[in-house]
């Protein structure tokens, strides 16, 4: 899970009585400004390198050109369209993956055979980089969205199923006893005790699932792009390479990184508002 942060206040209730030396140090700045400053420095070094070294702009674009390509891509629409296509396929595949994972977890939680099947399948399929089944998916379904969806769904099912079923199996037995003691059984026990108790595992499973899905869809689209398919961000980058529109390659990469960060932030926010607030997981 997560490790405790150096500055974390372990005594609760919290109030800001932290003992600090009066000298301002790097570590005493809040996280936000610290990261912003580093990012700024990085961009400045990048810009300086491109301006001073006279590197071929077909190989490395300056941050300024990348920013222009990014804005243009979204305003004029090609980058925006590509992003939307990728996100739509991702969303669809995630939904399919989540439903399958939910069914498998339910079977694994309630029946012995279901658990055995889940363990077997996860131990075979989880270590396999999901992109590796793309050729097979193309062979079966052709160069189309279906093949992409299958590959991505496969990428997300396993981390979600493993985590959620682990969450259900490790629910604190005392809480279950309390639930039964106050008269809960069946569906109500699942909904009001098991599901919230397993939430830390569920969220981290979803977080990993989305991260896997995001990496896999970009990889799969790049392969598609090479193979002549049309569509999303991977294709956009590959197309830009073909026509030597280097700033667009960088703009595509920046978009991918930003969406990845945004996904992570969404899950961190959900965690902060739930399991961290409830003390079921330490904050990061």
């Amino acid at each position, binding site marked *: 899970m997560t490790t405790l942060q150096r500055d974390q206040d372990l005594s*609760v209730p919290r109030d800001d009585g932290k003992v600090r030396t009066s000298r301002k140090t790097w570590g005493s700045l809040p996280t936000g400004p610290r990261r912003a400053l580093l990012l700024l420095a990085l961009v400045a070094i990048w810009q300086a390198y491109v301006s001073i070294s006279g590197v071929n702009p077909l190989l490395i674009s300056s941050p300024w050109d990348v920013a222009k390509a990014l804005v243009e891509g979204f305003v004029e629409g090609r980058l925006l369209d590509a992003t939307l296509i990728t996100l739509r396929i991702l969303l669809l595949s995630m939904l399919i993956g989540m439903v399958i994972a939910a069914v498998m977890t339910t079977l694994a939680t309630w029946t012995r055979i279901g658990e055995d099947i889940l363990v077997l399948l996860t131990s075979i399929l989880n270590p396999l980089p999901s992109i590796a089944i793309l050729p097979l998916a193309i062979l079966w379904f052709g160069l189309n969205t279906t093949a992409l969806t299958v590959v991505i769904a496969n990428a997300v099912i396993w981390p979600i199923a493993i985590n959620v079923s682990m969450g259900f199996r490790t629910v604190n037995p*005392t*809480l279950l006893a309390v639930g039964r*003691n*106050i*008269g809960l059984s069946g569906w109500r026990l699942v909904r009001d005790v098991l599901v*919230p108790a397993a*939430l830390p595992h569920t969220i981290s499973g979803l977080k990993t699932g989305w991260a896997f899905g995001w990496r896999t869809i970009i990889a799969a689209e790049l392969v598609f792009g090479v193979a002549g398919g049309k569509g999303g961000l991977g294709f956009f980058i590959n197309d830009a390479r073909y026509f030597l529109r280097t700033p667009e390659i960088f703009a595509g990469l920046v978009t991918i990184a930003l969406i990845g960060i945004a996904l992570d932030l969404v899950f961190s926010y959900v965690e902060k508002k739930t399991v961290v607030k*409830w003390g*079921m997981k330490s904050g990061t």
Partner: protein
Amino acid sequence: MKSQTISKETVDELARDHKPLLSVEHAQIGYVVNGKAHVAVGDASFEVYPGEKIMLLGPSGCGKSTLLKAVAGFIEPFAGNIKLATRDTLVPGPDRAVVFQEFDQLFPWKSVRDNIIYPQRMIGRDKDEAGRRADEYLTLMHLEPAADRYPHQLSGGMKQRVAIARALAMDPAILLMDEPFGALDAQTRSRLQQELNEVAERTGVTILFVTHSIQEAVYVGHRVVVLNNPPSTVVEVVDVRDVHDPADEGFSEAMVHLRSLLSAGDETLSDAAFE
């Protein structure tokens, strides 16, 4: 299996007729491990009358928790009978609210107040009534300042107070407590023993309380059911109703008597095993 719960009226009726609320009759209780029966409680019989505080005292591992779990309906006796008023097949239910030893018995995702409200809603009380009751028991257990906190923000003693408040708010026919103060430091522990005595006095609730502390048994209990080593039987039921003050001579006499009962069956047992 649908179980009807025992109401307050039934308890009052039993009190009027001097009838026991809970009778344990030759109960043999244990676990099936790898197909083999492992008996923890060999043959236990005792009765609990309305308004009593009955202590189950015995060495660690003698089956006190097992017996309590059977009363709560979590496990079924191999033989014998456990009767609550007129019912004798017990399934878990809120008329036998349990307070466990573990601090993690509160729902971490609910605030203190909601932890107390939620079980009441499950037994069919409306929102306002449940909220009103929650506030009442928050006050009774000195928990008002913590009402909106989450369990992880509480000390061990506070958590056990919440667990007691939550159990009492359900208006149980009998309150089952399994070493609820066992994991607390000595000071908090005696504070809570005292508070429990006060609350029991105020509410008149019937309590079945598991402990391995002789001092606790005498201080909290009306009667002490002493169990021996497994497969355990009831050695003696000791009346300590009239001793309250640890400074009294009667208090230490009762403790000496209980200690002799506990070490009678076991020569190797040192007094250090009991407080």
